């Protein structure tokens, strides 16, 4: 026997599933349309332009005050990264190199 609240729950679930399926199909179809993708791309592009201008403004402000900008810091960290990489390679070479046998110190003749 199905109680009224169970029937209501079943009805609700079925309706929700149908709505979800319809919405998901609609979105999936429209998301792949070239005009949707281009529109979203334009929006993202505009956001990037705004952020770029903001970054540039900050750069100029820092430069005006003779302070290192975010770009300067990024360049510095990049150089540091390269240096670290170089050190890591040297460490690898040391690790892979065969151990040199220890030779006893020779007495120096007078």
């Amino acid at each position, binding site marked *: 026997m199905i109680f009224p609240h169970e029937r209501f729950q079943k009805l609700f679930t079925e309706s929700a599933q149908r709505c979800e399926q319809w919405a998901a199909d609609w979105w999936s179809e429209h*998301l792949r349309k070239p005009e949707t993708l281009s529109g979203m791309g334009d929006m993202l592009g505009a956001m*990037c332009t705004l*952020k770029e201008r903001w*970054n540039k403004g900050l750069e100029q402000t820092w430069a005006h005050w003779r302070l290192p900008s*975010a770009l300067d*810091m*990024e360049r510095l960290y990049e150089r540091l*990264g390269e240096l670290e990489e170089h050190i890591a390679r040297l460490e*690898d070479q040391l690790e892979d190199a065969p151990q040199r046998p220890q030779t006893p110190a020779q007495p120096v003749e007078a």
Partner: protein
Amino acid sequence: MIAPARSLTHPADEVLRHGPMRVLRYRPLRAETPASRPVLLVPSIINRAYILDLREGQSLAGHLLEQGLDVFLVDWGTPSAADAHLDLEAYAVRLLRRAIRGARAASGAEAVHLLGYCLGGTFALIAGACGVPGIDTICALTTPVDLSEPGPLSVLTDRRLVDLERLCRAYPVVPGPALWATFQALDPVGIPRKYRRAGERWRDREQRERFRAQEAWLNDPVPMTARVLRDVVDGLYRKNLLAKGELRVAGRPVALARGTQPVLNLIASSDSLVPPACARPLADLWGGPVTTREFAAGHIGVTVGSRAPRDLWATVAQWLRAHQPTKELPS
């Protein structure tokens, strides 16, 4: 929205820190000496590392600890403006090499087993193919390799949608919530759908806790450096350079065929983010022996789902036991 949780379930100690990355070593569950060859878990950079140690009963790391293995975890951390220079090469070779070295130094082992999840698996394969020292075997879990047909993600990587060079200039570090929202845009109906389904099972305490833990992890997005995003989207997705053997790292081509380590390729058959067709070709592309296993699960469910202990975890533990070279594991 369920608030993010940022801690591991099992206690672990930091053995190495380099830039945003940390390497953590789990404390053994038993007093006896762990297995001689450690396992280094390499998660994706897109989400937090604790998916591999989500909660009791949903922890791959915990299961490996129970098997008596010495488990390390790479936590890629949160990149800041100071880390904006990190690209694919930095993650897959430089940082991963450091992590491997850290795990070897802490354990005293000659080599480690790498277990890479999603992009972490791709990094592990690139490191293996590039000859990064100290890699014994690789477990590639839902790892994208051949992205000629990337499935639903092809929308997000479409050239009309994202101008990567412009994105790099504007956002040297792409905010986590922006990445999270982009993934949600693929299936916005999925959010109300999963909450409705969770509501139907809300009386089951275990199901409720599982849902909470997974949502907390999903609602905890990580920022990504624009350079690594560019390398992944343009190099791996749009141009499919890794599968074609045309990917260049540190000026040298990365040929998967040069990889010699044994690989366990773990595929989720219902994975929509990394469809099986993107992971299966590894068997043909990799130079060493490849064992492939498929599980009826999705991208996340394969690792933390209710069937994960008897499917994925058991397979991984068995593989790792079989590849312990010098010393028998405690029974």
